[in-house]
């Protein structure tokens, strides 16, 4: 007697993607279809996610008081770059700013006095990324040279900053973003080669690499320290991906934008993050609900958002756009509270100061402005 059971695998064309695969039966609206396992899992994901939006964020926020009028003006204009400003970062002392530009210059400013404290010329143009070390004693920058270099800052007038340069990261395409982790010892980088990587500054060794983006990675942001070892990255594949720094695994991915994601920033509590994209919208994604919970857009805004950052409480989202303006959004209600004019070209970078007193924007008009 034959008492063996055999597993029958049907091979054929998947009803969704039409590829030749091993098929399994899937029931959709009481109709039986045959999907390959990839499409079945995507279908399962698409069915799980929509179970949870029982209510929208702005509905929950209806009972919150509306914000009053904001008066924000340019308080300082930092002039000195010879070409487009591409990136900037604040020092933890809430006063110093490092900025990098297309002409290869990286400048450290004192934002209170607008004095330039340090300047270094990189051997490449388009320095697209720069970051201040948490100790305030070093800066990291990189761009078309495919590397991230760390320069220790010294106040000794005789020292040549470029002489102490240390090359830390090596990618196979341009460096688009870099950030120190909680210490001066590790740097996280994002590159046009589609990967992110974690490096040890002292040895230049690659500690972890993060593969998963299907195109250039344009931005990254580390989770606020209390919430653990994750970071979010956004790229030209329209995806925002959240990574576990220890395992190198992608933990969550979000693909609702319609174009390249230029900037991602964590919400101050670490439970959500915002993204700004070339599709002229900014979106808020909640990590625990695993979905997009708000879109910040207006029909009159047709230019891409290049850079976003939150105020300290997370109530305000500042976004710099390619139409030379900065829009300030009420994160909870989804409405725009203010529009700031002043730059004479695209706003390329925007960061709120560590103590929340001001924010700084850098632009293709060669200047940086501090607003308060």
């Amino acid at each position, binding site marked *: 007697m034959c008492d063996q059971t055999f597993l029958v695998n049907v091979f054929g064309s998947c009803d969704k993607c039409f590829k030749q*695969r091993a098929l399994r039966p899937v029931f959709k609206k009481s109709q039986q279809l045959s999907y*390959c*396992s*990839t499409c079945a*899992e*995507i279908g*399962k*994901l698409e069915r*799980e*996610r929509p*179970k*949870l*939006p*029982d*209510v*929208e*964020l702005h509905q*929950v*926020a209806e009972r*919150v008081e509306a*914000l009053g009028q*904001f008066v*924000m003006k340019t*308080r*300082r204009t930092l002039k000195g770059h010879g070409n487009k400003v591409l990136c900037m970062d604040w020092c933890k002392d809430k*006063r110093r700013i490092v900025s990098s530009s297309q002409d290869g210059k990286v400048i450290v400013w004192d*934002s*209170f006095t607008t004095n330039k404290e340090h300047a270094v010329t990189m051997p490449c143009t388009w320095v697209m990324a720069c970051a201040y070390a948490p100790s305030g004693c070093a800066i990291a920058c990189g761009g078309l040279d495919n590397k991230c270099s760390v320069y220790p800052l010294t106040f000794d007038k005789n020292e040549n900053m470029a002489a102490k340069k240390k090359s830390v990261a090596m990618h196979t395409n341009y460096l688009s973003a870099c950030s120190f982790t909680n210490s001066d010892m590790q740097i996280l980088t994002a590159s046009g080669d589609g990967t992110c990587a974690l490096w040890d500054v002292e040895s230049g060794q690659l500690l972890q690499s993060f593969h*998963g983006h299907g195109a250039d990675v344009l931005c990254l942001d580390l989770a606020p320290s209390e919430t653990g070892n994750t970071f979010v990255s956004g790229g030209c594949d329209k995806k925002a991906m959240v990574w576990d720094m220890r395992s190198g695994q*992608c*933990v*969550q*991915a979000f693909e609702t934008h319609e174009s390249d994601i230029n900037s991602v920033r964590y*919400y*101050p*509590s670490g*439970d*959500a993050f915002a993204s700004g994209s070339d599709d002229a919208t900014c979106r808020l994604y*909640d990590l*625990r*609900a*695993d*979905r997009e*919970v708000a879109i910040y857009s207006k029909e009159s805004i047709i230019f891409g958002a290049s850079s976003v950052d939150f*105020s*300290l*409480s*997370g*109530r*305000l989202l500042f976004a710099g756009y390619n139409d030379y303006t900065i829009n300030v959004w009420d*994160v*909870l209600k989804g409405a725009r509270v203010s529009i700031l004019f002043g730059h004479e070209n695209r706003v390329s970078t925007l960061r709120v100061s560590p*103590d*929340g*007193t*001001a924010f700084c924007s850098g632009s293709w008009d060669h200047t940086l402005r*501090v607003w*308060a």
Partner: protein
Amino acid sequence: MSGKVAIGSDIGQARRAVEQLRMEAGIDRVKVSKAAADLLQFCTEQAKSDLFLVGIPAATNPFKEKKPCAIL
């Protein structure tokens, strides 16, 4: 032979994609009403320390112009 290699990597890639999706589908999710309420709570708690909302007097704001001083 090149045909075989192409199919091999296709399967490997597809397998990884399926595993990634399976893992993502399996994470514990929270209802938006709860997640949104938590975001709201964080906002209202931190609103007092958010200087853009509360505002600081021009005297303490290092960026606002101070009253002009006359040099005697």
